[in-house]
């Protein structure tokens, strides 16, 4: 049976959503720019484990996201501690991340590009799993990793601006497909790992509207755009997302 077989699900899942989820699964299992396939699947496993992490639960209700001290309930030993902490924090308490916390992950040896690729995997998985959870569909078992070495590709145009991570300002050359003209910072945010932006665009197109059509208020789905924005606004408020 192929991944994301939605036959038998009591609501109609559009084929473009199933296809996008399958493509993400294939990319998840393969080597990326900075992590191997095994490490990428381990990142995904850690995202799922974070939901049941006792330390994350305690910290989420604590006054400071740094307390109490302790160790996360880990899914495995393949990833460095800084990566595990980043995965758990971003998954369970994204609204209280800070620049000083990010700098600690860097001081602990997690490179900026490793971090960005990790975030790209994490956010894609959170959305795919969230879609399943919302519809009462069992989570897809994680894929078997494919052997291969990361490309270690770093786009020459990525520069530090106001964000914590370097970003591309104006894509060109191999990155020319990422966006045309001016785009939002949230699209540029993962551009240190261009494939993460491509992944984001593909999932956004099937889950919401194509990135190029976000500014068009008439772009909607079966739900009207106003209904979609109501959901978007409530989710973002609950996540305490300023952006």
């Amino acid at each position, binding site marked *: 049976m192929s991944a994301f077989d939605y036959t038998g699900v*009591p*609501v109609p899942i559009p084929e473009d*959503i199933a296809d996008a989820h399958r493509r993400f699964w294939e990319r998840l299992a393969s080597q990326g720019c900075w992590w191997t396939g095994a490490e990428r699947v381990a990142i995904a496993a850690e995202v799922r484990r974070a939901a049941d992490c006792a330390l994350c639960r305690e910290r989420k209700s604590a006054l400071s996201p740094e307390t109490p001290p302790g160790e996360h309930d880990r899914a495995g030993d393949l990833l460095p501690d800084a990566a595990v902490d980043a995965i758990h924090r*971003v998954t369970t308490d*994204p*609204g209280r*991340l800070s*620049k000083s916390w*990010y700098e600690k992950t860097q001081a602990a040896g997690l490179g900026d590009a490793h971090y*960005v690729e990790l975030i790209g995997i*994490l*956010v894609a998985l*959170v*959305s*795919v799993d*969230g*879609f399943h*959870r*919302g*519809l*009462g569909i069992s989570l897809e078992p994680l894929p078997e990793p494919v052997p291969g070495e990361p490309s270690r590709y770093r786009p020459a145009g990525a520069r530090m601006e*106001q964000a*914590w*991570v370097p970003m591309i300002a104006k894509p060109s050359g191999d990155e020319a497909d990422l966006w*045309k003209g001016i785009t*939002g*910072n*949230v699209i*540029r*945010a*993962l551009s240190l790992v261009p494939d993460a932006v491509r992944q*984001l665009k593909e*999932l*956004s197109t*099937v*889950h*919401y509207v194509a990135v*190029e*059509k976000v*500014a*068009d*208020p008439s772009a909607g*789905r*079966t*739900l*009207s755009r106003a*209904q*979609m924005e*109501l*959901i*978007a606004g*409530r*989710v*973002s*408020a609950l*996540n*305490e*997302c*300023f*952006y």
Partner: protein
Amino acid sequence: MTDRSAAAGSGIPHAEALVTFAEAVVGGDELQVATARQVLLDAVGPEALVDAAAVAANFERMDRIADATGIPLDAPMDLLTADLRSELGIDSFASSVNSPASGALKRALAPLLRPLGLRVLKIVARRIARQNAS
């Protein structure tokens, strides 16, 4: 949407069911999600329920990208929403420190510029649509 009670007065069809579903997906247990899902299914039908799950999933993703990378608000949005953010309490979110604070001038200008900004947004959307079509 920081105040869920505003859903009822929004004039948006099925706002209450949509907001309840969004809340369940973000922080609810399985029973809350199942209950909210059934209410929404009865209200809007299966295709729109799938849309709702997809949109909620999308913003679970986008919020984390923004918060995990420390990006500031885009300049036009910063300018056009300065007063609203303060009014809605969004300025008190921890991730607000990633964007420059809005002064009194910006907050005063925002409501004056907003109608113009919306018009510009429509023009930009039309231009993008033309670009995509050609």
